[in-house]
């Protein structure tokens, strides 16, 4: 079982759109996939039309594997299941800090799913806390969407610094450009510069796209409702590129 985390310190950069479409594409590629929505805002759950389990609270998530499993819902798509978020997830950081072995709790729970799923996609909340640290120490690959502007460069650098300082595997990070505009000179220059500076960027670029924005209206992955168009094609390509990664083989 391989774990892909979609993470960003900032919100609104295409983190959830990426989790949703990558999870869908992985399932289409034949892998049994679970999308775990860790963000109490529950955006990816919303996209899949899945409501949270009333019984799965913060403690249960980390301590009771059967209850966690009972919270899983089948999506409308083959081989893809969703573990939806709920409002109690806002307590995760505080809860984890109080528990022993606070950084490996997530890995322990996910291990219990290894016989059912080949790929787990984690949609992470946009912050740094104990939950994020759990994600950093569990994920095989951490994809980080970056809107190619100067401020994003700084944020990316800060993330790498944090990893190195805290002993997390910076080699697991894969940045990718998100909401990029091909005809924007600043975007183009930033992308070039960041690729040169950091070897860790994926080749695929996700364009700014009205289709992707419409996911919230259609409540489906963009690969479903706009399959032939640039946004959808880019996500499919992103997923293919990821599945070729050594760390995910």
């Amino acid at each position, binding site marked *: 079982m391989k774990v892909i985390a979609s993470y960003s310190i900032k919100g609104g950069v295409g983190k959830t759109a990426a989790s949703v479409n990558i999870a869908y594409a992985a399932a289409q590629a*034949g892998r049994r996939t679970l999308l775990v929505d860790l963000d109490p805002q529950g955006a990816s759950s919303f996209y899949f*039309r*899945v*409501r949270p389990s009333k019984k799965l609270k913060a403690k249960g998530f980390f301590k009771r594997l059967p209850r966690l499993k*009972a919270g899983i*819902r*089948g999506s*409308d798509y083959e081989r893809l299941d969703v573990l939806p978020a709920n409002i109690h997830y806002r307590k995760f950081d505080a809860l984890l800090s109080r528990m022993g072995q606070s950084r490996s709790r997530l890995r322990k729970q996910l291990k219990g799913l290894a016989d059912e799923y080949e790929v787990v996609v984690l949609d992470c909340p946009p912050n740094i806390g104990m939950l994020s640290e759990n994600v950093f120490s569990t994920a095989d690959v951490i994809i980080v969407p970056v809107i190619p502007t100067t401020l994003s460069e700084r944020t990316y650098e800060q993330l790498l610094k944090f990893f190195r300082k805290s002993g997390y595997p910076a080699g697991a990070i894969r940045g990718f450009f998100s909401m990029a505009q091909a005809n924007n000179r600043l975007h183009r220059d930033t992308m070039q510069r960041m690729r040169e500076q950091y070897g860790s960027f994926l080749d695929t670029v996700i364009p700014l796209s009205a289709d992707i924005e419409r996911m919230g209206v259609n409540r489906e992955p963009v690969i479903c409702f706009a399959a032939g168009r640039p946004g959808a094609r880019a996500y499919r390509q992103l997923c293919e590129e990821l599945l070729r990664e050594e760390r995910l083989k």
Partner: protein
Amino acid sequence: MSETRHWSIESEAVLDRLKRDFAVRVGGERTRPLQFYDSFPWQLWFSDRILCRIEDRLYFCSPGGLSFNDALAVAEIEGKTPRFWWRLPENLAVLLQPHLKLRALRPTVRCARTEKPFDIKNEDGKTVVRIFTATYRRNTARGAVFLKTCSAEPVRGYEDAFAEVCRLLDALEPASCNANPLRAYFDAFGGAPEPYAAKPRLQLSCEQPARDVLAAALKAALEVMRLNEKGVVEDLDTEFLHDYRVALRSARAVLTQLKGVFPPDDERRIKDKLRELGRRTNAVRDLDVYLLDEDRYRAMVPPDYAEALNPMFDDFRARRRSEFARLSRYLASKTYADDIARLGKRVDAAAAPGNDGAAPHADTPIGELVRHRLSRRLRKLRKRGRAVHQRTPDEAIHALRLQCKKLRYMFEFFASLFDDEAVADMIGSMRRLQNLLGDFNDLSVQQQALYEYYTAKRGADPALGLAIGIVIGEMARQQAALRKRLVKHFDRFDSPATVARFETLLASGVPSTP
């Protein structure tokens, strides 16, 4: 999670009923060809499994309708469906290996499947139960309908909705149907698979005259040979020829065991013909075995020298091609067909009453004859076996092996005259000894064959000779180790316990009338 359920209700009735209580989204109807696969002896069918292909997907399922999530394994396949389990994607390969082993898959039944999905939606527009109706037609989309199913699949996490839908559909049609399309096909059109036994068991009774039994045994063997002829000629897998030869050997064995039951002239001619047929198949079978063992041979040589064996395997493959061409030409020929027909007629003639005088045991009740012959066999076996000691030449062990084989064939053939458990017990006690004898013999024969192969080869590369030498050396070493185990096992076999077992067996079953 609950299992998919099936009914045989018409789709319109289903839709009408569901619409009353749920939001239903009706999907598009789609018709696609569906191809089933199985091995020649229908190993999957008799293990209650289905392997089928729709477009580029292969599904391996337990029977019960082909549904979204219920398959045991699904894989994408490009181009032709592979024949052997080891050429399939891993998730399928690991599940198919225990069923198929050396057997090839071939396409069996073909039909057209029309499916129409209905999704039950909740207030969020989420699918909570998946329903689909499927209509199966023979061969093509215009063929006769042989099965109509309506299936409801649960979606994980929405068990309540599923339970409700099932209640509703159960009210329309209480009995859940068996949605196995293959079974439905055979029920509608006939042709259900017959169990195939390479070693058929005859039902005998002790009073039957030996002539009738011998004829039945020979005919049964000829039938197994006939069943396998096509598979040999088509070269689907190595097991057709293997089974053909097993039947041939058992025919020869029973003829030998029941000497004096047919007139001597017939006996001799039938034996000769069977021997000739056996000879014609030797080369191909030997080469098949070498090629099946290729990995084993390479593993006997240090990795640096394994490549040196390549020319030998190339030779084997080339030789196999030419020997096979010869064999398949013969089996497909009119000469062969006539030979087999004549053989059958001779068996009938030999068994016909009015042939006695020349055949002292033609009318001896089979129970009596078999008991007598079995006792004699066991005596001989124990005598040969005792002569085995550490320095016995290989021939003596080979002779012991043949005695064991003959004894075992007798037990198998005439099993119905005795108590099942006693027979199984006896065969079981011999199994270990027989396997060791078989392995010993194989090693002996192969060393010889490899030596002859290399010394006869012109322009042979010395590196090949060295590699073969290493293989022969390793085989000799294994053989010596086997000999020790053999002696130990024979001593264990040659015991009062075995004699007791044997006597129990002979005494079981209905004694023949004096």
